[in-house]
Structure formats: C-alpha cells, structure tokens
C-alpha cells in the first residue's frame, strides 16, 4: 500500500515537473536566492540582491550556453521559512544552486536539505565559522568568522594601543569575533581590560559605554551587526569617550558603507578592519559601484552587496568549469580552489574548507569628495578563518 501510493506520488511529481519545466529545462539554470527582504534584516537582503543583479547586468545572463535565472524569495529572517523555501526551490522550481542566507541560523537550517538534495548553497552574508562544517555543500563568499577582527588586533598592538576593552553584540558572530580579537591581541602583547557583551536586541549602549569610560583604556574594540553601528557611534561621542582620548577600533560592520554617510562627522577617524570598502581602488570595484548606484537609486554598495556579487561570480565560474553541467556535487567540486579578482580585491575559495580566503584592509573614515568613506591604508593579504586550521 505504502509503495503504491509512493509510486503514484512520484509519478505525479514527475508529471508536474515535466509539465512545468519541460519547455526550457534544457537551457535554463535556476538559482534560488533566499534572503530576508522584510523584517529587521531587510537591508541585508536589499544589498545582496543589488549585488547579484549588478553581476548579471555586467556579465550577461548566459554562461556555458545556458541562461541563468535567479528566483528571489523572502524568508523574513525566520529559519523555518528559510528551510521550507529552500526545499521548495529545489523540489518545485528545480533550482540547481541556492544562494543568500542572511543570518547563521537561517543558513544552518538548510543544511539537511543540501544533504538530501545534493545542491550547493553559496552563503552571501552569514559569517559564523561553523557554517561551512555543517554541510559539504556550503560555500561562502562573505566572510569567515573573525577574519576581519584578527588583523585589527595585530594593527592595534603595533600602533601603541596596549590596553583595550572589547565590546561585542552577544550572539554567535559577536562571540567568534571577540575570541578572534582577544587571542591575537594577547599573542601580540596587548592586554584586555574588560570584555563587554551587549544584548543583540534593543541595544542601548549608554550603560556599557559608561563602564568602558571608567576603565580608561587606550582603545575600545567594537563589533555590532551592520545597522546598529550608527546608534553606537552617536552614543560613543555623546558619552564623551572620544573627548576622553579613547580610540575607537572596530570591524567594518560598524562603519557599514550603506550607513556611513548618515553617521556624520562623529565617525571621522574611526579605524576599522574589513574585506570591502566602496572606496577600494580598482577597475572592478569602480564598475561594480557604478552599476549598483545606477540600478538602485544611487545606493552605495556595502560588504553584503559584494558578497552577493561574488556569489554570482562563483556560480558563473563553476558553471563554466563544468561546461554547463548542473550536477550539485560537480558544481561544488568546481567551486573548490576557485580564485578570481573581485571588487574587494583578490579572493580564493579554500579547496578544503570551502570557505573564503581574502585580503583584509585597515581603513580610516575620511571625507572623500564631500562623502564619508572607509579609506584603506594597509593590507593584510590572504587572511584565513583563524578558527579553522
């Protein structure tokens, strides 16, 4: 009985997929793009989508003789939605690749789908170290764990900032970054006076900043998710930390390109380490920034956007390498070890961990042509995720 109904069901499914996809199944490669387009993380979704579209605008929509079609779906930042949508994209829409995933739990929720369906998923935003270990089909083009924090520690220790307080948002990536920074900073002879963790939701930094001020450090190292940075910056100045001579060093999330201009002069002089600045000086980046600005009402691309752009670049390159073969396992194999020049600079997908290896830049917030930018002044080449050997 069970086997009969099962067979019936499979026939039905096959029939349906035939009916709906027959006409252009041979020529089209579908890529499912799952992003938070609504809710508190909507800005992430908007930026990644802009990056994906920019790549297609600049490089056309055909690769290896196949037409690439991106199917955008909103998961509102809710993990069970992400999981259902991912599964539907694979089963119903016949997506041969998945892309997106704004937050760590959203990415982790699709791991079982990938294992069953054997479809690669390119992560454009989520950064926690563990993600790529949870499925052999995860490949990442955003950032791996505390990649951006470790060079900041080295830089700070070299530049006379010996006594530092860390302040991070209390969730997976924040704790990753706190550990990455602290380990490196201690190795370089620095001293951590205090490690402050602030709640992720409804952040009011005032009481924490007061504590930081009272310990009188040389600098405070900060990680808060993109979007919260502007509130932090405002309170940092209001609480008189800058006047007290405390330097602000951070990961690039705090001075997110998307929001930097709105922070005003309070942000001037902040030192951050990150993998992308819209001000990066290269032909690839100029074309990328111009395209995103043109297509999105003059919006400045940020590091999320470049994650989406590179995810598409990787998808195209993998399809080219497999000659248009959409077998998931072959695509992942093709992605391993891939190296190219992105708008952010040279990047590589590590063949073993499927994670990104990239240059991290030290930047200072400066005024360029009347706008605030993260201006790069030093490069740490080929930084790997310090959490994975």
């Amino acid at each position, binding site marked *: 009985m069970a086997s009969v109904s099962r067979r019936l069901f499979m026939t039905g499914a096959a029939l349906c997929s035939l009916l709906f996809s027959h006409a252009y199944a041979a020529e089209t490669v579908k890529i499912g793009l799952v992003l938070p387009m609504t809710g508190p993380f909507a800005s992430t979704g908007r930026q990644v989508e802009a990056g994906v579209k920019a790549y297609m605008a600049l490089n056309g929509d055909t690769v290896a003789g196949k037409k690439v079609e991106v199917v955008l779906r909103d998961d509102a930042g*809710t993990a*069970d939605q992400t999981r259902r949508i991912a*599964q539907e994209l694979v*089963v119903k829409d016949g997506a041969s690749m998945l892309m997106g995933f704004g937050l760590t739990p*959203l990415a982790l929720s699709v791991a079982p789908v990938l294992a069953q369906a054997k479809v690669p998923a390119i992560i454009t935003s989520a950064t*926690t170290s563990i993600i790529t270990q949870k499925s052999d089909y995860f490949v990442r083009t955003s950032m791996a764990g505390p990649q951006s924090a470790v060079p900041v520690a080295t830089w700070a220790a070299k530049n006379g900032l010996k006594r530092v307080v860390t302040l991070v948002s209390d969730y997976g990536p924040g704790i990753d970054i706190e550990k990455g920074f602290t380990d490196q900073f201690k190795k370089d002879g620095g001293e951590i006076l205090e490690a402050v963790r602030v709640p992720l939701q409804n952040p009011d930094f005032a009481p924490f900043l007061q504590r930081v001020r009272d310990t009188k450090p040389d600098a405070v190292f900060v990680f808060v998710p993109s979007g919260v940075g502007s509130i932090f910056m405002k309170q940092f100045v209001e609480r008189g930390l800058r006047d007290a001579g405390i330097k602000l060093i951070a990961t690039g999330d705090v001075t997110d390109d998307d929001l930097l201009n709105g922070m005003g002069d309070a942000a001037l002089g902040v030192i951050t380490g990150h993998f992308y600045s819209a001000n990066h000086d290269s032909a690839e980046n100029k074309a990328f920034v111009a395209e995103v600005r043109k297509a999105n009402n003059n919006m400045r691309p940020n590091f999320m956007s470049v994650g989406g752009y590179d995810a598409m670049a990787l998808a195209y390159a993998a399809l080219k390498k497999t000659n248009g073969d959409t077998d998931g396992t072959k695509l992942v194999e093709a992605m391993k070890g891939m190296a190219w020049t992105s708008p952010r600079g040279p990047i590589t997908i590590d063949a073993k961990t499927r994670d990104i290896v990239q240059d991290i830049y030290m930047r200072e917030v400066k005024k360029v042509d009347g706008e605030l930018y993260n201006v790069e002044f030093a490069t740490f080449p080929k930084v790997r995720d310090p959490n994975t050997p």
Partner: protein
Amino acid sequence: MSPLPRQALASAFLRRKARWKPLEYGFWILALGAAFALPSQQLLLSEIAILALFAMSLDLIVGYAGILSLGHAAFFGVGAYAAGLLSLHLTAEPLTGLILSGAIAGLLGLATSYLVLRGSDLTKLMTTFGVSMLISEAANQAAWLTGGADGLSGILIDPIAGLFEFDLFGQTGYLYCLTVLFAALVIARRIVHAPFGLSLKAIKRNSRRAAMLGISPNRRIVVIYTLSAVYAGFAGALLTQTTSFVSPDVLAFHRSADVLLVLVLGGVGYLYGGVIGAVIFTVLRAWLSVVTPQYWMFWIGLVLVALVLVGRDRINPARLTAWVRTKTGRAAPSAAPLAKEEA
C-alpha cells in the same frame, strides 16, 4: 418535574452538537487528498497543518476558557526545543519524541496555569506575554543546551515506526502532521462537546455565576490550559521533526502574535477556526511573498484589514451554510440557533 426528561434533553443536546457534520468529512477528505493531488505543495501543507494545530491549541484557551494569550509561543517553542534535544540526546524515534515533547510543554503549562487564574483579561495577557519572554531569553542565554542564537542543528529523525522516511518532497512529513492534527482534533472535539467543555463555556461567559452553579473555575482552567500547552508542544515538536532544525525564533513574539491573528481570522470557539485561519493565512502569505518578495507584508496587512471589515463570519462555514439556507428559502433548524449562540 422529574429530572429525567431534562437530563435526557441535555444529553440529546450534547450528542447533537457532537455529531460529525458533512462539511467536516469533506474537509478531512480534501486534506488527505491534497497529500496525493498536490505533490509539489507538501511543505506548505505541512506548515499549514502545524500552524492549524498550534492555533487549535490556542482556541482551547481563548475560545473555550476565555483566556487571551500573547505568549502561546512559549509552549510551541518548548515543544520544539524538547523534540530537538530528545532526538539529539535520547532517541531519534519521532513518535516517542512527539509525545515526550508534548508532555514537557504540558508540564510548563501546568506550572504557569496558576498565573492566569487571577486578574483581568489585560493581566492575563501580560502574564502570558511575560512568561514567553522569560523562556525566550532563557533559551537564548543557555547556549550550552540550546545552541543560543545559532539554534540547534544536526537533528536526525528516524523513519516513522521504522517504515516511513522523511523525504525531500515532504509527503511523509505532511501525512505525519495531518495524522497528528486529526488525532488532536478528535480528542479536542470529545472534550469540548462533553459536559466539561460546556462548563468551560459557562466559565467564559461569567465565572462567578458558574462558580455559584457548582462549577469550579480554577480547576477546569488549569486542566484546559495544560491541555492547550500539550497541543502547542505537539505543534512545536512537529515543526522540529519535519524541518530537523530549531532556531530561537520558535519562541519569538511574532509567533504568538501570528497564531492569535490566525485564530481571529478563522473564528474563535469552534476548533476549526484555527484550521481555517491557518489555511488562509499560510496560503496568502506563500502566494504574496512569491509575487512580491519585498512588499508582501503590505498586501497581507491590507487583506487582513479588508477581511475584518467585511466580517470574518463570512468565512465561518457554519454560518455560511445558515446564510445559504436562508437565501435559498429553506429553514435551517440546527444552524440558526447555533449562529445565535455564537454571536
């Protein structure tokens, strides 16, 4: 006046109310048929079944005991986490996991039910809300147990009864959820159509008068609140088992709000309200979010406002049949009093 005819009258009334209606048969046949007729929609159907069970559990306390809750996700979330942890540490057998998760959520319901015995509606609303916030933050902080903000992953669920494996199409998952929903409904139906259910309705109308009639409100509220928590725990466990993942948003406030919305949409106090609401809400959301990924929330808001303005009674089948019957000129002996009673 002998007590006998009155008693007979009462039990006849209860029996009449408890009888299965043709519409109900139709609904379940459709639901079962969907498993085979819509092979590409199984995941959405599972989601509907889970939300329906969750909304039904809320209906038990809102519609029957008159306790408004803004924190029902607490039980849903506890059930979800319990199912996840059980499968990671104890057994991956789904039925055992389901029952134990329901029991754990039920224990929490029993413990917190004493908090909703006192106070006005507003107090109860705030109490339930507070409890769910407490549990949500506890789950976020206890990262060693719950995985914190990253959620629980690596959950593997065995085939049901060792026979039916959870497939990628989600058919097994849907049939599993549907079976649990059906079983839960049958039990809930028996309970609310028993004298116990009637006494709950009496408490809802006027608990003081009910007490004077010899109905003890507190004990009954504790029982129904616990049962409702068990059902919510089942729903949460089903979500974990069909998605093999638990994220902290199972406890989020929006889940409590959504389920209340679903229930209001479908109608309160007749068990199927949650089911109908779940169908409308989920289908609407899935459809709109595909058509317009950026702006679907605007449209869903608009549709909800329109539905409320039009009057949700229009989608209540009992009244719809009553309305159709009066229009077609046929008298509706059973439906008319029903409609009056629910007004």
